């Protein structure tokens, strides 16, 4: 049996307002190896979670797509198509207050221990060009409200946040 790899842990995000009684607002954790055959399992989990949180069907599909594309990019670029490397996904509740309105949402942290990626070199291709490749990054940015990449030590972390439609602050 191959040796179990240690899965990366998330870095702290600075705008997370934790709910009392919730440990960091954690909703779900997934630890997977960088095997493309496991992507469908992650998609299934993300789709069910986003449905549970009340996102619309279109948003559920777009968030699921964003996570799927992010994982495919990690496998392809960060891990260089090695299929036995650790990837950890942390799904946490998110909240922000904007102009007196409270918005709740979902924060997704995707952590890997692959090579460092210079985000400035990652650009989706211009959409007016008809050629394969370069679409995934566009889809991620179109789907999410926040897309941040951080490298700390040996860990890469992609932070994706999507907020639900606004709800009136009763306070």
């Amino acid at each position, binding site marked *: 049996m191959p040796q179990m790899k240690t899965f990366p842990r998330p870095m702290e995000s600075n705008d997370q307002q934790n709910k009392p009684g919730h440990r960091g607002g954690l909703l779900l954790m997934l630890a997977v190896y960088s095997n*493309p055959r496991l*992507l*469908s399992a992650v*998609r299934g989990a993300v789709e069910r979670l986003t449905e549970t949180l009340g996102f619309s069907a279109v948003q559920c599909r777009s968030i699921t797509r964003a996570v799927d594309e992010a994982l495919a990019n990690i496998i392809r670029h960060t891990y260089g198509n090695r299929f036995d490397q650790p990837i950890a996904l942390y799904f946490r509740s998110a909240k922000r207050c904007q102009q007196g309105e409270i918005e709740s949402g979902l924060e997704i942290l995707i952590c890997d221990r692959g090579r460092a990626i210079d985000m400035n070199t990652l650009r989706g291709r211009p*959409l*007016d060009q008809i050629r*394969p490749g370069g679409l*995934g990054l566009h*889809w991620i940015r179109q789907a999410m409200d926040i897309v941040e990449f951080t490298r700390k030590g040996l860990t890469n972390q992609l932070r994706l946040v999507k907020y639900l439609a606004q709800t009136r602050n009763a306070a």
Partner: protein
Amino acid sequence: MQISTRRRDTATIFDVSGDIDFANSPEVRQSVLREIRKSRPARVIVNLRQVRYMDSSGVASLIEGLKASRDLGSRFILIGLSTSAREVLQLSRLIKVFEIYDNEEQALAA
């Protein structure tokens, strides 16, 4: 994911089912390109009715099929797009690049 090929009139039809993602899009790409180059059909029809999910590598495979078809003077047609498949083509601004019909009869009659 499963892909099968059949001939009807002057068309080669690919019936694809399941998810087209990073794990299996190379298989879709290879099957489509191999058959297009071997058979050189007048029409290439890709039936996506049973495809629930398609990622960017799946879209890339379709673009390669489209380009290979054009190079050989064939028409490359998509049929039976699911909501999800239609969404990704719209997001990528490719919905008008492909010839798209609801079903096989329309694609053959067009």
